């Protein structure tokens, strides 16, 4: 199938600002699904609220655009009730880890076979540029006019600690790597987390004097490095990207099938 067959063309142009990284994530996602050759009828995309969540409307899958922070909880209901479906959950940083933080850690703990994509632009874009739990100290935002004093989460460390069995990070600049990682995440049986660092030139870039999309993407290129690279040893402040965790653990829906067997057998 052609890439265009995976999108709902009548809804384009999309609503994201020019220069937004989320369109690149959409691109990477489509390319990974296309390479996998999966049928659209077996794909479900569940999203929450925010700029990121609008990605579901553009994909020609079964799409469930839910409420703020709860996408993973809805997705758990979809997946457990019909495990043969492939469930992808794109979320923003605030959506996934502020209002949705509880669902994030518990979905990871259960190791239910869902692919979570955290589109991390470190800001609440839809509401106009407030600081998020991923902004980190020193960041300027409309609700941090004197600079932010909140410490930030590290999505990767958080996902690892919560028990996710596939954890990766990439950026909107590294779109080839992004497509490869998302493909591996979808194929992984268990809870997968892919953090995609994405740029918001409209709010984060403007408030923090980081320039436009090009400058912000250049910054992503320069501030990141492959996991375990020599550069990381020399410059510990660099952010690593790649696959951090890829392990096999019992998957929730498969385990529940065993519960059914046990219950039916009366053991």
């Amino acid at each position, binding site marked *: 199938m052609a890439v265009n067959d995976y999108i709902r063309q009548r809804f384009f142009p999309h609503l994201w600002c020019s220069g937004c990284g989320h369109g690149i994530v959409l691109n990477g996602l489509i390319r990974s699904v296309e390479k996998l050759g999966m049928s659209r*009828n077996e794909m479900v995309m*569940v999203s929450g609220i925010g700029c990121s969540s609008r990605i579901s409307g553009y994909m020609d899958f079964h*799409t*469930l655009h839910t409420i703020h922070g*709860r996408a993973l909880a*809805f997705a758990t209901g979809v997946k*457990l009730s019909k495990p043969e479906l492939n469930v992808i959950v794109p979320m923003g940083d605030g959506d996934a880890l502020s209002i949705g933080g509880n*669902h994030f850690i518990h979905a990871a703990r259960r190791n239910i076979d869902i692919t979570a994509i955290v589109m991390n632009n470190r800001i609440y874009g839809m509401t106009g540029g407030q600081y998020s739990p991923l902004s980190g100290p020193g960041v300027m935002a409309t609700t941090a006019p004197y600079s932010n004093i909140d410490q930030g989460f590290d999505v990767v460390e958080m996902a690892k600690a919560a028990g996710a069995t596939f954890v990766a990070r990439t950026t909107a600049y590294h779109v080839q790597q992004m497509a490869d990682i998302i493909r591996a995440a979808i194929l992984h049986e268990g809870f997968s987390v892919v953090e995609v660092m994405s740029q918001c030139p409209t709010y984060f870039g403007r408030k923090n004097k980081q320039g436009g999309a090009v400058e912000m993407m250049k910054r992503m290129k320069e501030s990141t490095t492959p996991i375990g690279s020599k550069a990381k040893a020399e410059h510990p402040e660099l952010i690593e990207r790649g696959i951090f965790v890829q392990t096999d653990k019992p998957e929730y829906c498969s385990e*529940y099938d065993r519960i059914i067997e046990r219950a039916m057998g009366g053991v």
Partner: protein
Amino acid sequence: MTRQIKFIQGNEACVEGALYAGLDFFAGYPITPSTEIAEHLSRRLPQQGGKFIQMEDEIASMCAIIGASLTGKKVLTATSGPGFSLKQEALGYAVMAEIPCVIVNVQRGGPSTGVPTHVSQGDVMQARWGTHGDHSIVALTASNHQDVFAMTVEAFNIAETYRTPVILLFDEVVGHMRERLEIPEKGEIPLVERLRTAVQGGVDYHPYLPREDGRLPMSDFGDVHRYNVTGLVHDMWGFPSDNPKIVHGLLRHLVDKIENNASQMAHYKTFYLEDAETVLLSFGSAARSALHVVEHLRPRGEKIGLLELQTLWPFPADVVQQYCNSARTTVVVEMNMGQVCQMVKTTVRHPERVFLANRIDGVFITDADIRNVLRLIEGKGV
């Protein structure tokens, strides 16, 4: 086959009703006094291939059943006051996206943590208006286990017929009390199954376009029709719209599909109402004490009867008017500060003839409590 007879809690009667109705999926979170529903379903559902999940919180439970309903399953969650509050946003989502699902609230005393192990009927208005925005809602209740069973089955039938969430507003006394339940044989109570679209793959399917009879055929996630489900105001394909005509039309549709069918959903019971001058109006466990009063006073020649509401929302105004308009006195018996009483007052011809007999101290209202109010109304003192 003979009917199965059980001596069980009301919460178990609800479980039996849900399974009879064809429950496939339950998501919940422990909370007194509804926990037994989750406990029993964790054992019973997998025995028949269904799924049970204890979610991380009340909100997640409500969200999970909505997700599961979209794959074509009959779904349930159960909670009590604080959990019911937490579910309200997702409940509104189910209203907006027209997702069939059933939510049990075994009421306890509130507000806040309140009196977790004691009875109350204080969530009548929360059931009606707990989620934000204009909308309509369906809420059913019951006073005994046979009716808990029947109303649970009816809740699933209404949810499927009207593509709507349905609330079962039970209370701690009914939930925890043990009494006899006779489980009807298969087929004795008709079941409404999911109405699925007959539209073939490749042909435009409109998930939000009602048929002539008002019903909206669904398509399961995983089937040939890929459509969008959203809490935003949406068009007939399910895609967001802020076109004023669509906004207005959708809101009217969501309200009308419930309110215009209120008479079909109006369930109630009448006791000795033919010549009643004093009408007791009650629901849930409070109706048991009200019936006790009626059966005590009838042999003494008093023209008193009971109207027991089983449908609280949409409010059965026609039924209330029919039995209360000509009554000399209507006494609403409930364990709250008059939530149904206010509705009755705004419904009947003579609101000044409507009185409240209530208890709000977590103690079950007794026949003596109600008779005291009757004596006060008649000027006899207590």
